[in-house]
C-alpha cells in the first residue's frame, strides 16, 4: 500500500511533481527572462531530489551529481542565458504566436501518454523512486513540445536544456544515477553545447537581425 512508502520517497515524489509543474509553467511562460528563471528553479528542484536520493540510499557519487546539477543547471547555465538575453537585448521578446491553452491540453495528453508508457516499467522497479520515471518521461516530452511550439531561439534552447533535466531525473530515479564517467561526459556535452549555442545566437542575429526561427525557413525541398 501507498502508506508504506517512506518519507524520503515522498520527498522525492514531491520534488518530481514540482519538476513536472515547472515544466508546465515553462510551457505556459511567455517572457524570456521568466522562462530562464523557471529553468533555474527546475534545476534546483532536480538538485534537491538528487540530494534526497543520495542521502536515503547512501550513494556517494550522487552527492557529486547533485553538486554538479546545482552548479551547472541552477547557476551557470541560467547565468549564461541571462547574460545572453541582456547582451542580445531580447529581454522583452514575448512569444506571440502560440495558443497557450491548447498547448497545455496537448501537454496533458503527453503526460498521460508518458505515464502509460512508463507504467509497466515502474511496476518492475524496486528503487524507492519508481514513480518518478514516468514523470521524467513526461518532462522530456513536455520539453520536446516546447521546442516544437516555440518560435524564438532562446526558448528552444531552454526547451533543449529542460529535456536534459528530464533525462537526468530519469537517470537518478530509475537507476540511482548512471556511472560517474558517463554523468561527467553528459554534463560536459551539455555545457559545451550551451556555449556553442550562445555563439550561435550572435551569428544568427547578425544574419537575420532577429532570433525568430520563423525567418529560418528558406531551406526546403521543392
Amino acid at each position, binding site marked *: 500500500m501507498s502508506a508504506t512508502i517512506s518519507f524520503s520517497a*515522498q520527498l522525492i515524489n514531491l520534488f518530481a*511533481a514540482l519538476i513536472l509543474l515547472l515544466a508546465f509553467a515553462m510551457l505556459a511562460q511567455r517572457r524570456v527572462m521568466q522562462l530562464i528563471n523557471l529553468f533555474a528553479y527546475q534545476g534546483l528542484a532536480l538538485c534537491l531530489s538528487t540530494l534526497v536520493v543520495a542521502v536515503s540510499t547512501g550513494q556517494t557519487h550522487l552527492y557529486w551529481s547533485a553538486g554538479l546539477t546545482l552548479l551547472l543547471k541552477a547557476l551557470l547555465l541560467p547565468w549564461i542565458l541571462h547574460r545572453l538575453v541582456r547582451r542580445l537585448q531580447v529581454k522583452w521578446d514575448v512569444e506571440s504566436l502560440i495558443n497557450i491553452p491548447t498547448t497545455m491540453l496537448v501537454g*496533458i495528453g503527453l503526460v498521460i501518454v508518458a*505515464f502509460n508508457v512508463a507504467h509497466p516499467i515502474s*511496476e518492475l522497479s524496486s528503487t524507492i523512486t519508481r514513480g518518478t520515471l514516468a514523470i521524467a518521461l513526461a518532462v522530456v516530452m513536455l520539453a520536446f513540445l516546447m521546442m516544437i511550439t516555440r518560435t524564438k531561439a532562446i526558448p528552444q534552447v531552454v526547451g533543449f536544456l529542460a529535456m536534459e533535466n528530464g533525462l537526468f531525473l530519469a537517470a537518478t530515479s530509475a537507476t540511482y544515477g548512471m556511472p560517474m564517467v558517463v554523468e561527467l561526459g553528459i554534463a560536459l556535452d551539455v555545457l559545451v553545447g550551451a556555449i556553442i549555442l550562445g555563439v550561435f545566437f550572435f551569428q544568427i542575429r547578425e544574419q537575420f537581425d532577429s532570433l525568430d526561427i520563423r525567418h529560418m525557413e528558406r531551406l526546403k525541398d521543392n
Partner: protein
Amino acid sequence: MISISGLIGQIFAIALALLLAPVLSGWVGQCRAWFQNRTAPPLLQPYYMLHKLFHKDVVLAHGASSLFRSAPFVVFGCMVLACAIIPALSTDLPLAPAADALALVGVFGLARVFISLAAMDVGTSFGTLGGRREMLVGFLAEPALLMVIFTLAMIAQSTSVTTIVETLAHREFLVFPSLAFAGIAFTMVSLAENARVPVDNPATHLELTMIHEAMILEYSGRHLALIEWAASLKLYAYSCLGLALFFPWGIAEGERFSGLLLAIPMLVLKLAIGGFLLAGIETINAKLRIFRAPEFLGTAFMLAVLGLLVRLMLEGSA
C-alpha cells in the same frame, strides 16, 4: 441514528456559519485595506450593511417576474445548506450522509443558475452581461473543482466529504504531491467562484469588468441583503471546504462535546489566516482581462488533472 450531540453540533454549525460569514468578509476587507495603506473599515461592517439593507424598502423593476423575487431566497438557502454539510467543525453531523462532494458542487451550481436567470430576468443589458459571464466562469470552474474532488476522492476512496476529511486527517503520508496540485487548483477555483481578484473584483462597479456585481445591480432592500449574505456564506463555505480538505487538523470527530469546543477556536484561527492570505493574493495580483479568465481557469483545470495523474502514478496503490 441522529445523536443529540450531533443534532446540537449541526444546529451550532449552521448558526456559526451565519454569524461568522459576514465577519470573514469584513476581515478580508480589513486586511486588504491594511495591505493597501488605507484606513480599514470596521470588522463588523458587513453587519451594518445587512442591517441597513434589511430596513430598506424593496424596489422591483417593472418587468420582474416571480423568479426575480424568489432567487435571493433560493441562493441563500443553497448557501446555508452548503455550509451545513461541510464538516467545518465536526465530522459527526446528522447531515453527513448528504455531504457528498458532488452534491455540494451541485448545490453551488443550483445557486449559480438561479442568480444568473434572475439577472437576465429584468432584461437590462448589464444583468444579461453579468449572467453570461457568470455562466462562463462557472462552466470553466466546475470541471476543475470536480477534478480536485476526484483527486481527493481517490485518496479517500469515497466522494463523501466527511469520509475524505476523516481519511486525510489520519493520513500517514506527510507530503502528497497530488494534494499540493489539487490545493493550488482549488485556490484558483475558489478565487474565481467567489468573484475575487484576479477574475473579478468585489469592490468595483466598473461596467466593463464586473461579473458578480453586474448581476445584482437591480436588487435592493432585503433581497440585496440576502444576496450579500449568501455571497459571504459562499466565501465561508469555500474557505471551510478548503481548510477541511487540505488542513483537516482540529476538526472534531466522534461525539465528544469537548472536541467541538476545541474545534471552534481552531476554525476561527484558520479562517483568520486564510482570510489574511486571501487579502494578500488579492493585493499582489492585478485583475485579469475578462478574456484571460478562461486561461486562468484552464490552468486550474490543468493543475487539477495533473494532481489526479500524479496521484495515479506516484501514489498508486500498487
